[in-house]
């Protein structure tokens, strides 16, 4: 990659940007590979948050294996109480702790390096990190000691130990503080004029994610604080329908943070692996704005077969809110591969329709993770999500395995895989350590993608036979009647197990190689990272 100038060409109307940034003396280093400025305080917290993300990914990953082996009918590993306990742990450690620690790391990196700024506050970064970590540990302590067998949704009147709600609140407030620190950084960068004109596209995407995060976390506070007080018997039980409405204001929108963050990572990886640049920045940015504007009430699609909310409300909120966000994703789904196509064609891979695609750097794990993530998210996650979220179609999908089948192709095959690809650059560039066993690294994205895709497809098929999610035994032992699912459904559940095992292997390879690189990897300080 060529060296990157941070400031634009000075424009007549504006004073030139402060190319040196606003860093105190000695608090910045220049990246040996890209020439980008790296704020040392931010770097420390990028590392801390990223390491914790991977730790919780491991907890969630071991849980995933146990779940997969329990839902595989001929294995049926866990006893009933531990199945639900581990399911609760998996949802929280993956969807909340792994993803959000990683996102805070991304925000700190983007806010400082891409905007050429120092991190606004070291104290806030520390407070945020400490609260998030305490919260996550508290939640895990409660779950693993059996005091919170309530699933990550903790739908009232299910009731957990107060420590569980407290942990979630601590984590959420900690995240909010991290996001505020990010906005403060964006503010001082603007104030100190460390860059020229508009912010870079990746930073724009990150800002979009952060704005959605604030709205999300406020919903989290509105719903978790009454639940916490109720668990202490200080107030009466919150209404079940009200709880679901506000909880999904948290639960759904946090998925939009993930999408916005993932798309930003796509732009980042597309650029760094192939030199791609967007065809039209106005289009890309406009699509991010659609995310911010239209996502907040799309959480309605979790309540499509609920009592108490009417058809008009359901249809209205699904259509205008969701489909303009869908439009945004469809736009990114074009602009991202188009930018790669253009870059590859310019390099001379101009043969036929797909010559550029075959010539792409498939051996580079940053590229393969990004492109597989794009394909899985678009072809599987997007299509299933919009269909299942259609008001009436939800009748034949709600709470069946079609739902986990869908979101394991969005937040896992999409977001998590993209974040893995990101790590293949973050570790050499920020930790300044090289990955070992590079052949293994090159196949990791393929293994993980294959496992998750198999599992998710099998879940979707099983779900269309009616197999429920969050369910320990589809033989219904001890029940007065047996629904007796189709043999094909049982076969699909076997494939769920196989896919889960393959995905787990992919996940474990990622974690082991990354932990090895971070702690024992060859240092590359003083020179460029070894190209993939």
């Amino acid at each position: 990659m060529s060296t990157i100038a941070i400031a634009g060409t000075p424009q007549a109307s504006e004073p030139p940007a402060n190319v040196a940034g606003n860093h105190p003396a000695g608090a910045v280093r220049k990246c040996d590979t890209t020439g980008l400025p790296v704020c040392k305080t931010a770097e420390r917290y990028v590392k801390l948050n990223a390491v914790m993300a991977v730790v919780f990914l491991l907890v969630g990953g071991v849980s995933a294996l146990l779940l997969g082996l329990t839902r595989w009918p001929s294995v049926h590993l866990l006893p009933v109480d531990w199945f639900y306990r581990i399911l609760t742990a998996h949802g929280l450690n993956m969807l909340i702790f792994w993803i959000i620690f990683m996102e805070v790391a991304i925000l700190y990196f983007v806010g400082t390096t891409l905007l050429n700024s120092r991190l606004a506050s070291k104290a806030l970064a520390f407070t945020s990190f400490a609260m998030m970590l305490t919260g996550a540990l508290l939640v895990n302590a409660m779950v693993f000691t059996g005091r919170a067998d309530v699933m990550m949704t903790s739908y009232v009147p299910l009731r957990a130990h107060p420590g569980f709600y407290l942990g979630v609140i601590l984590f959420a407030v900690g995240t909010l503080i991290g996001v505020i620190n990010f906005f403060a950084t964006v503010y001082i960068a603007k104030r100190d004029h460390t860059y020229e004109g508009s912010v870079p596209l990746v930073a724009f995407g990150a800002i979009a994610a952060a704005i959605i995060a604030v709205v999300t976390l406020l919903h989290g506070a509105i719903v978790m604080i009454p639940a916490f007080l109720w668990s202490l018997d200080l107030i009466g039980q919150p209404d079940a329908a009200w709880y679901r409405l506000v909880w999904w204001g948290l639960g759904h929108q946090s998925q939009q943070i993930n999408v916005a963050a993932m798309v930003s990572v796509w732009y980042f990886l597309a650029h760094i692996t192939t030199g791609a640049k967007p065809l039209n920045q106005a289009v890309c940015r406009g699509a991010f704005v659609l995310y911010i504007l239209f996502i907040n009430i799309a959480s309605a699609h979790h309540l499509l077969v609920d009592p108490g909310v009417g058809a008009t409300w359901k249809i209205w909120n699904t259509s205008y809110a969701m489909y303009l966000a869908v439009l945004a994703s469809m736009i990114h789904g074009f602009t991202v591969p188009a930018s790669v196509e253009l870059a590859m064609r310019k390099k001379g891979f101009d043969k036929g329709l797909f010559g550029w695609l075959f010539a792409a750097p498939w051996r580079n794990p940053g590229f393969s993770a990004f492109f597989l993530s794009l394909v899985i998210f678009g072809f599987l996650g997007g299509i299933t999500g919009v269909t299942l979220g259609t008001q009436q179609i939800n009748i034949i999908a709600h709470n069946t395995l079609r739902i986990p089948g869908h979101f394991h192709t969005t937040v896992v095959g999409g977001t998590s895989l993209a974040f893995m690809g990101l790590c293949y650059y973050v570790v050499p560039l920020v930790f300044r350590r090289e990955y070992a066993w590079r052949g293994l690294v090159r196949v990791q994205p393929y293994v993980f993608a294959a496992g998750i895709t198999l599992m998710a497809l099998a879940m979707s098929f099983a779900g269309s036979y009616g197999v429920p999610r969050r369910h320990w035994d589809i033989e219904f032992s001890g029940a007065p009647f047996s629904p007796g699912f189709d043999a094909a459904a049982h076969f699909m559940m076997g494939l769920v197990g196989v896919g889960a095992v393959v995905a787990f292997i992919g996940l474990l390879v990622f974690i082991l190689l990354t932990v090895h690189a971070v702690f024992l990897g060859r240092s590359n300080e003083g020179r460029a990272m070894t190209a993939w």
Partner: protein
Amino acid sequence: MSEENRPEENHKTPGTLVLTILLLLSFALYYFANWKALADVWHVR
């Protein structure tokens, strides 16, 4: 610098267009197959 950011005059991306149209077709197929499946179940309001 401006070399990097110069607006692309002639950006032809036919491969991507084919891929996305493929996406649209699979989308439509899956979407309407689901309406069909819905039409086959009991009536409910």
